[in-house]
């Protein structure tokens, strides 16, 4: 009973904060509500017994992605009233994307399977807690049946990373950069000269 109550609490807060993300006037508040939604989604994962996914959701999305979101949103001077002007115009596109996502969810929980070995997993997605931990179960699946897909995902991310670096990298000639190696390699005898200065003589 407590589990059901907890589910409805977390689910309600997730949906409510999702609505607040798109309806609050202040963009910083939007990001903070997004974080609240992530948290409650993680709590729902915990209720499912998927503790590994819950922690990863918080580490990756809340701990890294949302920090950068917040970073950017705080720096920008966004006028949300202006942004809202085109709301009615973009509504059909948004609704279409929503429908596609809904259809995908139906496909994913429906009869369609990518790999026959995992066909049984749709119904028994939670292995008994005493048999194997989440982390072992995920590892055993990702590094065996899905290893090529896993590697491909990694390569796609690598390409994206290289792309981001190439776009922002520029070698500037007008700044003087510190060379730590050169600094550490300096020895006192190379750069400091100790002189005996005679009285009234000067250097």
């Amino acid at each position: 009973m407590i589990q059901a109550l907890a589910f409805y609490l977390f689910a309600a807060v997730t949906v409510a904060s999702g609505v607040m993300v798109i309806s609050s006037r202040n963009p910083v508040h939007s990001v903070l509500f997004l974080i609240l939604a992530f948290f409650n989604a993680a709590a729902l994962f915990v209720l499912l017994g998927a503790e590994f996914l819950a922690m990863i959701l918080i580490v990756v999305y809340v701990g890294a992605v949302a920090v950068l979101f917040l970073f950017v949103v705080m720096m920008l001077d966004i006028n949300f009233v202006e942004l809202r002007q085109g709301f009615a115009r973009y509504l059909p596109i948004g609704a279409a994307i929503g429908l596609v996502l809904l259809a995908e969810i139906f496909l994913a929980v429906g009869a369609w399977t990518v790999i026959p070995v995992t066909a049984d997993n749709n119904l028994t997605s939670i292995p008994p807690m005493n048999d194997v931990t989440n982390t072992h179960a995920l590892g055993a699946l990702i590094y065996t049946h899905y290893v090529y897909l896993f590697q491909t995902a990694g390569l796609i991310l690598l390409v994206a990373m290289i792309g981001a670096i190439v776009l922002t990298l520029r070698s500037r000639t007008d700044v003087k950069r510190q060379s730590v190696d050169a600094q550490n390699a300096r020895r006192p005898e190379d750069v400091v000269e100790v002189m005996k200065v005679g009285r009234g003589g000067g250097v």
Partner: protein
Amino acid sequence: MSAIDPYILSGVIIVAQILAIVVPLLVAVAYLTYAERKVIGAIQLRKGPNVVGPFGLLQPFADGIKLLAKETILPAGANKLIFILAPMLTFVLSLIAWAVIPFDDGMVLANINVGVLYLFAISSLGVYGVIMAGWASNSKYAFLGALRSAAQMVSYEVSLGFVIISVLLCVGSLNLSDIVMAQKTIWFAIPLFPMFVVFFISALAETNRAPFDLPEGESELVAGYFVEYSSMSFALFFLGEYANMILMSAITAVLFLGGWLPPIDIAPLNWIPGPIWFFLKIAFVLFFFLWVRATMPRYRYDQLMRLGWKVFLPLSLFWVVLTAGVLVTFDLVPA
């Protein structure tokens, strides 16, 4: 009502356990501030606090009462709700991580399978208190401090994660009690010594301590992100920062110094109960925190970023590969 009765009983037990962790923790935080002033005083050939109570032992309480008695100031331009929420968040995050820390064999509030990930998740959230405080204060010093802190914490988290992975490779479990038990023969600080050093330095950066205390650099940013805070809201930041130091020391003790285990499992040493060993190890790491603060000058910001991304990240990545290679080659991979 009989369906609810077991929940009430277990609820009462859990609250009692939480109090048994939090109350000693807050006393430890109070005396950490005292220890810091005494240790730095000794290093700088001063006496430190010695007026309030015998040996100045009541100084932390005098400080606390002073902060409580002061007026809470809300800046006119501040975003009120977030301004008040930020110190509370910092303080709460520094407390909830203790739920998974094992004090002895089986002596843990929540013995969850993904304990290390939980700790990593909570410590990565600490940055929110800082960013929210900096932004809500509506002051340029606070905002600059918050931006610095966000970039710094995100940078050092990456190498912190790799260090944790190399420990996990040697354990084969994410459970903190399992990690401690895996160090029965040898503490991980010895085979993974470079990672131990990287972890300690990253912990300094993660808790915004000297020499990485740029977010609160008083010489250029006045006091950084909490410059607009006063009274109890300031005290919550202060308590949160020191509780985080204790937490990071506890994580270091669990990951590298064998948690509650004695150094060698022989007669006089293993008579001493586990929590005392754990406490001694935490105190040992904390002393390093204070020692570093009294010794090191503050890093320049670009040096801080260089150290995180160009030194620690490649080094820790290399050690993950090396650890995995050694474990596979010598057939030492834990089941």
